[in-house]
Structure formats: C-alpha cells, structure tokens
C-alpha cells in the first residue's frame, strides 16, 4: 500500500457506534478511532493508488448516507 488518507468525520447526533459498525470492515479502512469531542471519528484508508483510494473512500462514505455533518480529507504524504 502506498497511498493513504485520514478522514475526520463529524456525525449527525454523534451516531458513532453506527458509523464504526458500518465502516470498520469496508475495503481500504486500516484504522478507525472514536475521538473525544469533535470531530467524532478519524479513519485511515490505504490503497494501492489514488484512484482506488478515492473509490474506497467514496464507497465507505456512501454507507453513512445522511449521517455526515462535516468531513475533512487529509491526504497522506506519498514518499514511495
């Protein structure tokens, strides 16, 4: 794996448990932590290339439907 993105998620009504259950087994998710305060979750995605990474993230976000209140994409540095 050589591309990564950290996603900071703020959820509607802090539905953290639902989000964790929906995200943890998604393709590309390698780490998922519930945070104290906002944002609610930090998720690390990894993939072989940028296109696959974007696909994994978009598929995962789609499972949350209308539960996302705010989102930040922090792209990992690719030193490879």
């Amino acid at each position, binding site marked *: 794996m050589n591309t990564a993105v950290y996603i900071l998620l703020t959820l509607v009504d802090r539905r953290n448990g639902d989000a964790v259950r929906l995200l943890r087994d998604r393709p590309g998710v390698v780490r998922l932590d519930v945070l104290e305060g906002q944002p609610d979750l930090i998720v690390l995605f990894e993939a072989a290339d940028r296109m696959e990474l974007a*696909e994994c993230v*978009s598929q995962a*976000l*789609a499972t949350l439907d209308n539960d996302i*209140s705010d*989102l930040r*994409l922090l*792209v990992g540095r690719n030193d490879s």
Partner: protein
Amino acid sequence: MKKVVAMILAGGRGKRMDILCHARPKPALPFGGRFRVIDYTLSNCLNSRIDSIAVLVDHLREEMARYLTDWYGQNSRPRFFRILPPGSGSYRGTADAVYQNRHFLERSGAELVLVLAGDHVYQMDYRQMLAFHQKSKAVATVGVAPLPPGEAHRFGIVHTGEHGRITGFEEKPRFARSNLASMGIYLFNKEALLQHLAEDAANPDSPHDFGYAIMPNMSRAGRVFAYQFKDYWQDIGTTEAYYEASMGLLSSRSTLKMDGQWQLFSGDTLRSVVSEPQVGTVLNSIISPGCVVRGRVENSILSPGVWVDDQAVVRNSVLMDNVSVGFHSVVEQTIADEDVQIGSYCFIGFGDNGTGRGITLLGEGVTVPPHTAVGRGCTILPGVKPDDFTAGAVLPGRVIGKRERALPMF
C-alpha cells in the same frame, strides 16, 4: 459547380442535454477541446468551398450570435456570412425557419440550398453529395447514415428503393424497417424547396418541420434520393451520448480527423503561451491552448484555460474552459462545465450510485470547496457555491442546487 447557399439550423434547445444546455444553445457546446459543436458543420462548409453561409438562430440567440460573430472574426473565409434570427417571436419549426428567410434565399442567387443541422458532429465533403444530387437528377437529396441496431427510435428513418430513391420517411419509430437515419442534411433545388415551404406554411396543421412535413411530402411528389455517408457522424442528443462521443475522440479507432487533414475552424480566441513550467503527465488526452497541467491527466479532454494543480489526477473526464482542479484532488468520469473550481483534496466521481449512470456533472460556475467528496453520477447544478456543500460529502447519484424553471423563449 452550381452555386450553393448553406442554411445552418442552430436554434435548437438541446432539451436532453441536462444542465449543459440550460444557459447555452446546443450548437455552442464545447466538443473536442477548443471547438464548439457548430464548428464542425461550419468547417465542413469551408472545406467544401461553400462560401455563402447563413446560420438560423433562435433559442438563446444572443449567446449563439455572439459566438458566431467571434467565429467569423477568427475565420473570415466565407465570402458571405449572415446570422438570421426570427423576424418576430420564434421559429415554429425547422421548415418555418427557412421559410421566414425565403427572401434571403431568393436574393442569394443560389440554385441549390443546403440545409444543415448545427448540432451534429461529422466531417463531410458536401461536394460529393452535390455531385450525387446532380447525377440523380434529384429535386432533393437527404444525407443518411447506417445505424447500429436499437438506435432507430432516436432518429428520422429513411426507406429507399432503386438507386437510393426515397420511398418513405418515419420519424423516431419504435420499430424501424430500415437502418438508415436522416442526418439532418438536406440538399434542395431552390425553386422546389421554396414551393414546398410555401405550401407547408399555408397548412395550419403542419408541424413546419423538415423531417415530419417537408421531406415526406417532397418524396411523394418528386425525385428525392438518399446519399449514404459512412464516415464519422454523431448526433449528440443526450449527456451520455456527449460523454461517449467525447471519449470516442480519444480512441485509436476514432475516424474523426483532429490532425489537420480536415481543417477545423474554431471561434476560440487564441491564447498566449502559458509560461508556467509544465511538470505534469498527460496520457492519451486532448489538451487545448492555455492549459496548465502540473498533475496527471489521462484519457481526458481539456478545453482552453484549464488548470490541473500539483498531485491532482484527472481521468476519463471532460473539463471545459477555465476549469481548475486543486492540489491533490482526484477527478474521474466527470463533465465539468466552464469556470468550475474544484478545491484541494477533493474526490469527484467515485462510489457506486446503483443507477447505472456513471457520469458526474458539475454545472457552469460551480465551486467545490476543499476536502469534498462528490460521488459518481451526481449532478451539481450551475452556480452552486461552497456553502451549498453542507456535509463535505455528496453521496453518489445525488443532485445539489435548485433546478431552474424552464427558460423563457427570449
């Protein structure tokens, strides 16, 4: 060669083109980088040595006229070039558009009238059709193209008999008995055309349309022939067809000549050479003048003035004039209309929307804020601003923004 005048019909609405034609006449739609759809028909005229051209405008006529004025300014090759809006109100149909300009035709001194659709993309030497017309001793000749199976319901279909003489017309039949589509290219003996236009104008029940009224009547009354054209021809009727046709230009099998063999004349103002260092990567793409690529562009078409920033990736997409793609953003299978700004760290055009429609559409002037994911098959309506992206993620297949009411005729 008999004297020919070309009448290009450029008043259509492009109803099935979604947001791409809300504020733009379909013939002015960018196609193939720095060209507009109507450039292909205009170029055909110049390459065929037809130097009397009239363009009939209607829907969004001021915008169309502005582009045509620019085009003539860049290519003052036709000896005679006129833009013809309706005298009052709106044209009632394609035949009415020509009928309203009959005095222009009468004064033109032409013996033959070539009526052309301004919203199709093809490369044709009209002189060959003219020779066929004269050899057949036809009063009218219709350009036809063979269709692949299952496409007939979108077109006017022509039935032919001996030597290509037309025996019948069907407009958009559900089950067609022929695979020959009318290309919207008609060549007429002027006097016969004027006679049939006058009869049609006097009929209050007529739709005043070439396909529905004039051609069926003419083929019953006289010698009307089909001229079969087998090279590149596209009727870009829908957003999906537009996207497929654009991607087709990048195929090694494309027969549309973009290499100067068949010169294309654009109304685009030439831009100065960009002094930015070009450190990006471009694969199998059309990149217009004035573009800056610092990231990676693959299988895509970029109109003039597009900026692709460092680490950005654009793939399988059409980016129109002055689109910018921010640092580290990724864009896939997207049509971005003019002046779209995509911020940094965005993912555009990914995810499964479950509808089978894969193209993401970004309307004119949309600003996508940084850190935004816009899913596959989304439509972002023209003018949507960062505050409209409330959650940072637009899920696949969603629409953002307010649909405008149908545009008024004027």
